[in-house]
């Protein structure tokens, strides 16, 4: 497998794969959400390098711009907004049955996908949608496919984005005093010490006597 690849390709793949996997493990294992976000950037860059290796230059560029430029920044924005001081021990309550089941499930998924990943399972017809013409023509190949074969999905995408923008505005809108719900839900007795609880100008604090048994 690796033997048929040229040495630079093999080395690039190995380094990028290690970067991606280390980043993924970092996302799962780091206690601080900010560190997790930065590790996510690492994984995304590793995958972008792999995209270049596979002659998907346009997608590599989009991956870097959209994911690390927009999505992770959005994550960091929200982390900063709701408090960065919260740390979570990943294995706080020990290795109980639920965790064991989780890891068993993970191993099962891994085994299943590895089984399917064998090369002889690539059985489909070649070049149904259109041929790929190598690195230089990647953008034109993709553009041609998107604006001809996938034109309708592309247009539907714009509707999706509009819906997402409107939904985000509605969800994150600060309620004015007039339409504040009269009865607040009983709050969950979760971990104390939420950084957001000290938000003095949060409207949810006002006019909610006894709305919470939890002192945050």
């Amino acid at each position, binding site marked *: 497998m690796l033997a048929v690849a*040229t040495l630079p390709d093999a080395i690039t793949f190995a380094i990028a794969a290690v970067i991606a996997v280390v980043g993924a493990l970092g996302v*799962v294992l780091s206690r601080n959400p900010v560190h997790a976000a930065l590790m996510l950037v690492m994984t995304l860059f590793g995958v972008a390098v792999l995209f270049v290796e596979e002659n998907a230059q346009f997608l590599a560029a989009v991956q870097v711009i959209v*994911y690390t430029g927009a999505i992770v920044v959005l994550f960091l924005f929200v982390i900063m907004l*709701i408090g960065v001081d919260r740390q979570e021990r990943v294995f706080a309550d020990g290795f109980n049955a639920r965790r064991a089941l989780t890891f068993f499930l993970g191993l099962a998924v891994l085994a299943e996908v590895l089984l399917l990943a064998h*090369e002889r399972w690539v059985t489909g017809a070649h070049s149904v949608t*259109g041929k790929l013409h190598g690195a230089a023509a990647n953008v034109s190949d993709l553009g041609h496919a998107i604006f001809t074969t996938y034109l309708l999905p592309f247009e539907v995408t714009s509707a999706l984005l509009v819906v997402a923008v409107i939904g985000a505005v509605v969800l994150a809108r600060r309620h004015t005093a007039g339409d504040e719900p009269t009865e607040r839900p009983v709050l*969950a007795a979760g971990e104390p010490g939420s950084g957001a609880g000290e938000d003095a100008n949060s409207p949810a604090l006002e006019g909610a006597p006894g709305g*919470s048994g939890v002192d945050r």
Partner: protein
Amino acid sequence: MSVSPTWYLVLAAVLFTVGAVGLLVRRNVLVMFMCIELMLNAANLTFVTYSRALNDVGGQSAVFFVLVVAAAEVVVGLGIIVSLFRRKFGATADDAHILKG
């Protein structure tokens, strides 16, 4: 000659598994969200790999749409998280267990 698609698929499987286990193990909503992004990326890598293996532009087009949907999903999801915080839920998914039916 680039590395055989098998290795890419194996790597994608590993990334997907790490993401799935992280989603189940972690309690912080934001980190769970990042794990979803990890799984989406693993799927994208699979798409691109098959696109190369079958010399078909369809796989790369699918990744393009996945990227758009992921962006929209993150916007709405983070909006939900922010509004949960407005209502004084905590940062972990357990704090929002009142949402259970």
